[in-house]
């Protein structure tokens, strides 16, 4: 399978990465090189093989459903580019 320029633009938008016009063709070439490389997987018979979900056989750790952390609003927002009163600020979303 390979991607065309339109698909490159669509993937870039899905990935939320702005792509300039002159970047589309090189990206298309690079993505197609990777897709050509992984193409060989299509020839493998995977009938009856389970997809791996956990590389180490283990039971998911569980703990009591209680609050173990919190009250650290200052720390949480400390690295945000724009904040106000412990809130993250973003451009207006709803008109």
């Amino acid at each position, binding site marked *: *399978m390979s*991607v065309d320029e339109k*698909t*490159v633009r669509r*993937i*870039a*938008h*899905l*990935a*939320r*990465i*702005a*792509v*300039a016009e002159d970047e589309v063709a*090189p*990206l298309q*070439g*690079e*993505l197609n*090189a*990777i*897709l050509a*490389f*992984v*193409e*060989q*997987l*299509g020839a*493998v018979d*995977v009938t009856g*093989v*389970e*997809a*791996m*979900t*956990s*590389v*180490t056989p*283990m039971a*998911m*750790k569980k*703990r009591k459903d209680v609050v173990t952390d919190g009250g*650290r609003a200052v*720390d949480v*927002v*400390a*690295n*945000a*580019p*724009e904040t106000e009163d412990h809130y*993250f600020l*973003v*451009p*207006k*979303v709803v008109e």
Partner: protein
Amino acid sequence: MTDLNELSLAEARDGLKAKTFSAREIAQAHIAALEKARVLNAYLLETPDRALTMADASDAKIAKGDAGPLEGLPLGIKDLFCTEGVVTTAGSRILETFEPHYESAVSANLWRDGAVMLGKLNLDEFAMGSSNETSAYGDVISPWRRQENGVLSDAKIVPGGSSGGSAAAVAAHLCLGATATDTGGSIRQPAAFTGTVGIKPTYGRVSRWGTVAFASSLDQAGPIARTVRDCAILLGSMAGPDARDTTCVDLPVPDFEDAVSRGVKGLTIGIPKEYRVEGMPAEIQKLWDDGAAWLKDAGATIREISLPHTKLALPAYYIVAPAEASSNLARYDGVRYGLRVPGKDIAAMYENTRAAGFGREVKRRIMIGTYVLSAGYYDAYYVRAQKIRTLIKRDFEEAYAAGVDAILTPATPSAAFGIGEKASADPVEMYLNDVFTVTVNMAGLPGIAVPAGLDGQGLPLGLQLIGRPFDEETLFATAEVIERAAGRTVLPKAWW
């Protein structure tokens, strides 16, 4: 007397214990060495004040007889581990100003045991790369240089990646050991390229908490150091249960250092025929044969084995790893941390921020990951790759069930290459560096790279040993036999 920064970590530990020198003295020796080595670009950030403060605290503890297992030992930290109050960039512009308000589990364990932080080490951006050429903060230069007709060439050599800063710093004596991470070979390949030792432990042995995520089902932290023993000492401190990482196992940490001198008598070492790839340089084949002969001489049984799905590991990795990366890196959106580039609306702000903040390789992988997870392609790519991962793991399980204790392979298909030499338009050429290491991540197994010789141009070559799950001890024992037989690598004299 040997300069203090040229001691092995074990020698430095013993010297500190015997009060032959102080923690402040060994910290100062390192601080002076890294000031002179800035041309290598191994450190993104030097933290000399913190190092001296920590060293003084160590000296006080040593005086009181209260020293931890790593008391006073200066280490470098890959800039993928969050360090409280110290900028952590992951090698990316998008985190240029990110100052964590917490400490990663791995680094916290090292400080608990008395280690001293020298600074943060360069890496490929978000650990995506095999040459340390994707860092937003410049290439790392290997301390190694090629020899041409007996003369050292000026051509700059890559240290490998993604833990290129860690490997270069260890090889250039800019720390006694370093933390590193390995998603497809990022500890073992740079270790092999720089004549150092690096171990990727079993998935789950080390907590991933506070380490910047690349591909969560593959990422695992481990040490790079100058000897097998030094790696065993460091892993003993880095590893251990952590309730904050649900994939970190609740197993006690064995005494890894104790395993180092165990020997290989009675062990069965597998030689997988599928690793004998087409076009393998004769010197790599010879190195591999030498390794098998050394282990046989030391009492191991050598057995040819088959891991039939080996060649599928790299293509399957280039579906699984980008898919997980695209999901993990979705968090860099200009809202909670780091860079923000404005746009006409919130979507444009996200897109502009990520376009400016991520480098080319990272964008490429996010886009491949987005594609293989997108509607209509998920089953054909992602689910199929996860099934192939099951097959790869099964190959190893069958070999171990048939009595193999560890598997010997080359660590890399070639010695280190020059900076810019693999900058072709086809990213796959670079990816092929990880062909021998990536299987191990796909199967969640432990793997160690140990130096075993030099190529015709005087550059180091390494062998890899792959172990059973949670049996790093056998890897340390086996790697030590190779280290001893090959002779300690003579690291480059400072030309910088």
